[in-house]
């Protein structure tokens, strides 16, 4: 039985009032093969009873997770940064990861990341490939909608890419516990971009490896546009605030951290715009080509009506 001391990876599972999704996330951790996992469930101010019920079901299951789940009920809703900082401080295993209640890992995820981090001793963390599963929750039922694959490369976890605010899901990263400590831990004042901030600090101190195989699934519940917009604007506001603070910091090479982030962001925005333009251009060319084809056919038909008539007859016969 894996316990907090003999497990390789601690997975922190923050949860709030989603017992069904929590049960699924914990099942995906229970089903990890060839790896000993310790789970720290942090109930962020939600009703404790359903969380306890889910944990009871998972621990009553015959698996190595039976004695390897710790539950912490927070009496009040806590900022994510503070929650994670506290949770990280309790980790006794060499590796640590975050898995939100709605997310899942493939059964081989833990074993592959542990092997990678053991083989690549210079990597401070590793980012695994992931798939996106869009879902809709109707009453108690979770309906799958669309699945999308993502391509992840070394470039995505470079310092420049991370500074530009590239959107990588938190649960696709697994860290060395020491790397988090060395990077100064999680900024407890942040709510939305705490892990982005941590990833940037880890990447500026060391390197983050990549396993391109999709080992994690990012389950995205359909939300209303208003909820989505509100969330996005909160993230952007906090990101902006952080970048402003970074303008007073220097990276190990001597460059201004905030300026680097602004440059990287501007570069990424330009790239995105260019990509959009390219797509639009291609669509336009296609339209012009089809219009050209249509108009030249119409012109030919007007100039040579007999040929048109014959063509129509041929087609009718066919």
């Amino acid at each position, binding site marked *: 039985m894996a316990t907090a001391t003999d497990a390789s990876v601690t997975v922190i599972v923050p949860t709030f009032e989603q017992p*069904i999704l929590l*049960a*699924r996330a914990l099942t995906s951790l229970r089903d990890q093969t060839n790896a000993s996992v310790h789970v720290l469930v942090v109930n962020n101010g939600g009703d404790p009873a359903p969380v306890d019920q889910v944990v009871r079901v998972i621990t009553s299951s015959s698996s190595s997770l039976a004695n390897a789940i710790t539950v912490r009920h927070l009496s009040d809703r806590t900022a994510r940064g503070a929650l994670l900082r506290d949770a990280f401080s309790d980790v006794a295993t060499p590796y640590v990861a975050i898995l939100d209640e709605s997310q899942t890992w493939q059964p081989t995820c833990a074993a592959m990341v542990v092997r990678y981090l053991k083989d690549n001793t210079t990597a401070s963390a590793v980012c695994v490939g992931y798939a996106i*599963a869009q879902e809709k929750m109707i009453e108690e*039922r*979770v309906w*799958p909608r669309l*699945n*999308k694959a993502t391509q992840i490369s070394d470039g995505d976890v470079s310092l420049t890419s991370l500074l530009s605010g590239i959107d990588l899901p938190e649960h696709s990263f697994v860290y060395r516990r020491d790397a988090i400590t060395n990077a100064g831990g999680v900024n407890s004042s942040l709510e939305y971009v705490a892990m982005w901030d941590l990833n940037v600090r880890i990447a500026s101190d060391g390197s983050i490896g990549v396993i391109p195989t999709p080992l994690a699934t990012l389950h995205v519940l359909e939300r209303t546009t208003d909820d989505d917009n509100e969330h996005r604007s909160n993230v952007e506001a906090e990101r902006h605030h952080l970048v402003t603070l970074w303008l007073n910091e220097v990276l190990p090479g001597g460059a201004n951290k905030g300026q680097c982030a602004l440059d990287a962001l501007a570069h990424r925005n330009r790239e995105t715009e260019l990509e959009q333009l390219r797509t639009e251009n291609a669509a336009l060319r296609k339209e012009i080509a089809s219009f050209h084809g249509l108009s030249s056919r119409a012109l030919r038909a007007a100039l040579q009506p007999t040929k048109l008539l014959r063509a129509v007859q041929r087609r009718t016969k066919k």
Partner: protein
Amino acid sequence: MISTVAQRIDDLKFDTGLCDVLSVDVFDTLITRSVAQPSHVFAVLERELLSNASSPREAQLYDGFARVRLLVERRARENKAKTSPYADVTLDEIYIEIRRELKISFADSQRIAEREMALERDMVVAVPHTVAAITRAREVGVRVIAVSDNYMSSKQLLMMFEAAGIVGFSLDDVFVSCELGGTKSNGQIWPVVLQRITTPVHRIIHVGDHEEADGSAASAAGLSVVIDDRMNRSHRFPINTTPAVLTHSRLEASVRDQLCESEWDAHTVMGGTTAALIVSAQITSLDEALMRDPTARVYFAARDGFLAHQLWNDVRVGQGKPRAEYLHVSRSVLWRTSPNFKPSRLVGPRETLTLARLAHRLEMPLLVDLVTDCDASTMLTAQQAWDIIEKYRVQVDAVTAQHRALAVEYVRSKGLLQPGRHFVVDLGWTGSSLADLAALVHAESNGEAIVEGLFLGLYWDATHIRTRFPMHTFATNDMATGDQQRALLASHAVIEALITAPHGSVVGFCRHGSAVEPVLAEQHVEQQEFARVIGKVCDVASTTARQIVTGTHPSGVTLEDVTGDGVWASIMQTVHTPRPEEIELFGSIRLVIAIDHADDGVYLVPRTWPVGGIVDVHDSLLRGHWLRGTVASPNYRGKHADEIRSMINVWPEVGHDWVALTRPS
């Protein structure tokens, strides 16, 4: 017009003096592979590449190699056709495309190509009836040549003949399309062959498995032909090639070899492959569970666990494993054990039933007298039935309490209330019935007995059940892609129909002396279907599963090969991509799905196309019938082609490419 001179190669007579040369097609006529279809060699190659990968990046590169190999071959042919319309593509040309596609070095592509050829030699098997025929031909002085449409060189084919133990061929006797500038399909190979062998065309007999290439095209060139397709009857869609399919493929190749002297038999194919693998999966999932907790008690739920239960007690008990109980439980009886059960669980939202049937279902004959505004034969909609249940809730709950008391006694007699863990094996699909059983056991044992479900597969309706009791899955689950989950739902009716028991479903419990016994619904339709089709499939499945479990199957497949992915691939090969004869046989099965098992059931392939728009049609086929059997059925494939195409655009599981469903696009 094909001038066929015999039905099968065995019927050919060579001592008449009318034939000087016997020309044989190579693949699936003279030789075959130890897998069910040619493309599966690429799956073996992919498996090798993945296991030899030195880094996750390299593994990612070769993930899906088999499908890439198939697609680039097609592309290489198209490219070749632009410059040489009649010539066939060579292996080198295919690997130039592989190099481009995967962006690998020349040396790597050469290494993989060589490995592919080595695997072809390792996996080749001679076709006995063709070898016998060429021996007979040679005995009377008839020359034997081999003519193939292929990208492999004649030298490679010769080496494969040697590896298969076929002797007597030289390079002068082997003619391959990629070396001769024409194929059998386009007829351009024959002038070259005829020129080289210098035998009058009317004195040559050609034998092959392909109606067009070996039949009409060869006939048009003036040859007498024999079409013998016994060895290609195991072919399905080549695009579904992935390492996971190999266990199924080896079993299906074994069935192909077993049936090569007889009529093709869909019972044997289904029983000898997918059904046997499902039964074996039930055994292996219990083996794995007992490794997690060796002290647990074990059970197989009726009726899905009937075959595995017998096999377990016959094979595993002697090996020191605990004897398994056969548990007569079903949703019919378990849903009513929970107080305040939802009426919608007893009457489905689309059901209509008479008042008498509702009373019977509730085990409340008095209900007919209680309800005064209609009589026993009045047809009720689901809503009306639910209203009646709610209106007479007090009486219904009283009956439910009696029913629950009997159920408690029954599970106690089976040892389920004893403290400790109890593994229950069931097929799936939401786990709700076993969740009710778990709740009953938990309540009656004061939480000292824990029921744990071992399922073949679960789909999204199982996610919320995960908060109720521990569930494990073997082949697929609610964390798979939505497309894959829908493919499970689309297949579950066939699995449910075929993996079953000769007895009826349990619909209640009764007291018999001091014991409580299950009441079984012995439905005429179910008995009829069991005698007609299902019993034969179950017999073959039982025998094959026993061979797999005991490691004596002729294909060499053992329990180690029975993995979750492998069983899923097998379900997809037969249930998702059925052959025409399988659709005809299994599509005609009537499956009784009503909770009281009191009607004639529904045909797996409906007799008429469902009414409504594509959403209604899809929903009806997905939940109540055999979706892929229906859309691939000759009755509907042509007539409803537009609707089927529209459905594929929205729901990929309506199409045949099942490998794509397992990975997000």
